[in-house]
């Protein structure tokens, strides 16, 4: 096995396309079937997800020997859809399909008390197609394609209840999702243009030559980090996950946020690594990149765990817990990049923790959902003492809770041991003391995790039952089956870590070009080392102390001020400010331009006014020049009293002239009018135009007297022919 480290053989298969297409087509089919029968729709969705699980298992089987590669040209200009499945992708694919199947089984009963079931199942399947596509693609472009599909389709799952709260959470989810998608898109455009390919393969040599390569890397991390719930981009997650129906929250938390981590993994530990392993300078770039991711991971795990302590809503605790656990996963990625070729331990920890988290977090969301389904309560205060009504749920929840807390013998422990080894290795290799601090915070977060999960468990299932809390019916068989399956897997991984490491994690890690020495180190790791067990004892001790202090002084019921959140401190004011400035300046510009046009006729008015002023000026001028004449005539009049006859003569002459002028006008008028009438008559006579009194125009040309045209035609013909005689 270790001989073939990093060397891959490829095989072509249509299975990846089938796995992504079947749910997408199935979504349409489910919508159609749902119109006629609820029962058959449920069976259909169940069968479809089972089929996808089978196909995924088949794909895993194939990819265990060789990587599966296929291209489909679907008319996106120059870029085909490119599927490339290696062992990591195939395992995650099977994991997702399986959790989806479990959630479908759980949905059978859970969804009966929800409205709009057909819509739910349609977008449930569409989301499945998108999510599986993310794990199966081999280039950034196809990854983006499925990533966007998943984001948009899952929006419908988040807002399923359509309450005001769900809608506002959904809005945040949608716009951050689109924002993240656009970040990824712009980065992949840059990468495509400058390197000529977006295939996910070690290509740091080309990537560092991109102008603004840091920006491109940052855009990719932001884009995937939003989906992964990386602090400080996590703000949508604690809002969106609790409002969705429980099976959907299970999928959102169990699987979909992993796509973000998966994307970061592919970017940081694959794309941003040099193809030439000897390039020391380039490795330092990857290491720096990894170092930043480590700290984002640490920040994420600690702050989210801390926030989880103070939540009162069971699903919100789980949502914050998801963010916190994503911190562990991100830290694994960061360490892997930080150590470069020496990081198989981190890669192993990452893969194992993703698998573990998928099971216990999906399981816990469904179990809390089951409680909510039968009691109608989700607030911790109103719950309690339910172990009698939920025997199976209680046991499995305890197992999952202990799993997430990292109790030895359960699955969470194994992943955390690997991750802990990885961070210790990172510290020991470079002796960067900040990483020592990181390791301490890692341990402290473990304690906080144990504390909040203990609080969640005890307040739901233990203690006194509050008044008015009743659970309808008993646990349905399908819920029991799902929970027992999850519990069994958790226990199996926890008790057989060596088997899982050899058979599952080893092969996954072997596809990366790690150094063989460190790979063997991972394979031979001892889970039951006394240091690790001792660490767990400390963690539990600190957690117990925290829990005691917290419950004793009711610290957990403190309400953190809302304005303190990063959303209210940074994001909202920033977005508001941007929108305000942007729209206001746009409107000012628009109104100015519009005003110029609207007011431009005023220029015409000014033009007219100027004309009038000029006109009257000229008038005055003339009148003024005439004024002396007037005065003279006045003087003449006054001088010659006997000038009466002269005046009479002038008046008579002018009236005669006026009479002649009127006559002339009359003649002209009658001539024109008469001729017009005459011509009209002739015209009407000749052309036979029917005059419709009610219409405005001579609308109807009567073509009945066709012979008249013939006449004209012949006359013209005769004239032309006669002209020819003279020519």
């Amino acid at each position: 096995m270790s001989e073939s480290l990093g060397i891959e053989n490829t095989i072509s298969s249509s299975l990846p396309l089938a796995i992504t297409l079947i749910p997408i087509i199935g979504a349409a089919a489910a919508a159609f079937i749902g119109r006629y029968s609820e029962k058959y729709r449920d069976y259909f969705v169940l069968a479809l997800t089972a089929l996808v699980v089978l196909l995924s298992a088949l794909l895993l089987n194939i990819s265990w020997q060789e990587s599966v590669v296929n291209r489909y040209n679907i008319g996106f200009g120059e870029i085909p859809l490119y599927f490339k499945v290696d062992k990591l992708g195939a395992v995650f694919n099977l994991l997702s399909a399986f959790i989806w199947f479990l959630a479908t089984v759980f949905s059978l009963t859970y969804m009966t008390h929800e409205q709009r079931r057909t819509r739910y199942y349609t977008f449930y399947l569409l989301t499945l197609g998108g999510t599986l596509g993310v794990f199966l693609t081999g280039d950034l472009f196809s990854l983006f394609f499925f990533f966007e599909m998943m984001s948009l389709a899952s929006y419908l799952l988040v807002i399923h209840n359509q309450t005001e709260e769900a809608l506002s959470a959904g809005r945040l989810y949608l716009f951050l999702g689109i924002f993240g998608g656009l970040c990824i898109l712009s980065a992949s455009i840059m990468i495509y243009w400058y390197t000529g390919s977006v295939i996910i393969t070690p290509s740091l040599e080309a990537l560092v030559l991109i102008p603004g390569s840091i920006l491109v890397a940052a855009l990719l991390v932001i884009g995937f980090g939003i989906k992964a719930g990386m602090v400080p981009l996590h703000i949508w997650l604690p809002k969106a996950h609790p409002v969705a129906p429980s099976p959907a929250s299970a999928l959102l938390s169990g699987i979909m946020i992993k796509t973000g981590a998966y994307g970061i993994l592919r970017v940081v530990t694959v794309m941003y690594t040099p193809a030439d392993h000897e390039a020391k300078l380039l490795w330092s770039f990857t290491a720096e990149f990894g170092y930043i991711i480590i700290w984002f991971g640490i920040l994420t795990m600690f702050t989210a765990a801390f926030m989880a302590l103070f939540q009162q809503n069971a699903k919100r605790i789980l949502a914050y817990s998801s963010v916190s656990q994503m911190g562990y996963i991100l830290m694994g990625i960061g360490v892997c990049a930080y150590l470069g070729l020496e990081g198989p331990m981190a890669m192993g920890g990452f893969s194992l923790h993703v698998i573990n988290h998928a099971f216990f977090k999906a399981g816990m969301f469904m179990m809390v959902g089951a409680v909510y389904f039968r009691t109608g309560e989700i607030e911790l205060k109103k719950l309690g003492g339910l172990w009698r009504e939920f025997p199976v749920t209680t046991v499995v929840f305890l197992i999952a809770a202990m799993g997430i807390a990292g109790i030895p013998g359960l699955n969470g422990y194994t992943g955390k041991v690997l991750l802990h080894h990885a961070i210790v290795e990172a510290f020991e290799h470079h002796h960067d003391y900040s990483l020592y601090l990181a390791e301490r915070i890692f341990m402290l977060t473990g304690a906080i995790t144990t504390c909040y999960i203990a609080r969640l468990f005890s307040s739901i299932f233990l203690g006194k039952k509050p008044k008015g809390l009743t659970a309808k019916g008993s646990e349905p068989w399908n819920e029991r089956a799902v929970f027992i399956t999850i519990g069994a897997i958790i226990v199996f991984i926890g008790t057989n870590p060596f088997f899982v490491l050899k058979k599952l994690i080893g092969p996954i890690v072997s596809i990366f070009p790690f150094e063989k020495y460190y790979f063997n180190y991972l394979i031979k790791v001892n889970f039951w080392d006394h240091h690790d067990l001792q660490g767990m004892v400390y963690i539990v001790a600190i957690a117990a102390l925290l829990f005691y202090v917290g419950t004793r002084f009711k610290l957990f019921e403190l309400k953190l001020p809302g304005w303190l959140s990063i959303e209210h401190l940074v994001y909202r004011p920033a977005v508001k400010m941007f929108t305000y400035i942007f729209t206001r300046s746009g409107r000012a510009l628009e109104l100015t331009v519009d005003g110029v046009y609207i007011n431009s006729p005023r220029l015409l008015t000014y033009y007219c006014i100027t004309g009038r002023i000029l006109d009257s000026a000229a008038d005055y001028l003339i009148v003024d020049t005439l004024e002396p004449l007037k005065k003279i005539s006045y003087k003449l009049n006054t001088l010659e009293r006997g000038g009466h006859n002269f005046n009479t003569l002038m008046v008579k002459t002018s009236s005669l002239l006026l009479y002649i002028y009127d006559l002339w006008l009359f003649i002209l008028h009658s001539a024109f009018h008469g001729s017009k009438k005459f011509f009209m008559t002739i015209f009407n006579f000749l052309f036979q135009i029917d005059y419709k009194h009610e219409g405005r125009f001579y609308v109807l040309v009567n073509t009945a007297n066709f012979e008249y045209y013939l006449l004209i035609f012949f006359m013209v013909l005769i004239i032309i022919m006669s002209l020819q005689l003279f020519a």
Partner: protein
Amino acid sequence: MEYEVVHTLLPAIIIFVPIVSGLLLFLLGHRLEPYKELICIGVTGLFFVLVLTMYPAIRDGKILLGIFQYFSFPLSVSFKVDQLTIFLGIFFSFVWFMIACFSYGYMAHEHKKVRYYSFFLLAEGGCMGTIFAGDLLGLFLFFEFMALTTYILVAHEETPITMFAGAKYLYMTVGGGLSVFFGLLITYYLTGSVVFNRPGLITEPSALATVAFAAFMVGFGLKAGMFPVHVWLPDAHPAAPSPVSSALSGIMLKTGIYGMIRVIFNIYSPEFIHNADWDTVMLIIAVITILLGSAMALLQDDLKRRLAYSSIAQIGYILLGVFLLSEQGLIGGLYHLFTHAFMKGLLFLCAGAIIVQTGIRNISQMKGIGLKMPATMIFFTIAAVTMVGIPPFNGFISKWQLSLASLEAGQPFFVAVLIVSSLLNAAYYFPIVITAFFASESSSETAHGHEEGHDEGSKPDAHGHHVTNNQTPKGILREDAPWHMLFPMGLLAVGCFAFALMPENWAWNLALAAAKSLFSM
């Protein structure tokens, strides 16, 4: 690549099909009154088929050319069909056809239908004539013809608001026409010809050449809705009947862009424009157009007004692609031109369907309208998603191509503008969809079981049998637009993504051939 020129009158005859039938319909209105819709749909459909018949010849690398000598006038009017023309011709005539089909339902309750349909045909003739013209004179004549006939359509409703918007449109468009005419005169004075040529006619830089370029840009930019001369657009679109807004925004704005392309490539040449640095000015204007359109669209509550401002932003995309003056950019611009014709045409038709069925114009009143008119709003959603540019919809391809072209030109800034603008698109389209489908008003009991056309009236009873709840109306589509309105909308919606899903993107190839022909001729 050499193109073989075939002299034929076919393009000219094709152009006069809608014009003559429009005139006949108008003159013989009383007699043809009962068949007016049929004539309009038939002629636009026929026109589409006729344009398609020219496609095989163009594909084989031929150019169709028909020249008419203008009597005692030194210029001739010619008709030319080349790769660019056929690309625009096919898609535009298809959208015209779809809009004509939609008009049947939309105009059913309107007055003066004969006038509407005849001027609809005349406007189509003018629009297609602009695109089929082989020289600047013909382009100008048809451009003016289209602009003036469209006025009748814009002012169709004859309310005071409409008359104001119409007057604004008319006066500005007349100004734009005069501006183009001015450029035409200077071109003729400088070169003695206005026939489209490659390399361009004007090759010597001079003050007059600059003035002519500015005049062309103002004239064509006015029609296209470019930044400082766009102000008629947000008034005219909401005032006009929806099919007309659809045609205005989807098609007629593009004739301005087409004129610009002809000016760049056939009057001047890209190198000339680049050397004179005019492209920088135009690119800045394009960016302002994008951002201004988006900013104003965010503020609007009237749906059609929001769509109108969105058109301005989208025209900015196309201008950006065209004025990058590279083959990549032109492909992006042309593809976006086609994309926008389909999606914006569809969006306006959806708005029209909503107005006809419910009388609602404002977005804030559209709560739960997606439940009443599921098909319409699904089409709207498709177009909105196309607008944001999410794969596999067409908008994604053009955005991708435009971004690559910007990077090729060494301008990553434009990529940022495109990305931000996409986000803004999402910010002003998705709330409409969300309001329509999921707004809180839908929590009422009757609306509950109904979502996107799936009837969930049947719920399993205790025994697992399915009982149909008779209280909820079975025909959920009852309030939706009738099938003859939904059908053209559906076809346009399919056009928004079908090409991207096919192994060979036919539209893409056409745009590619058009851009190649312009750069190689």
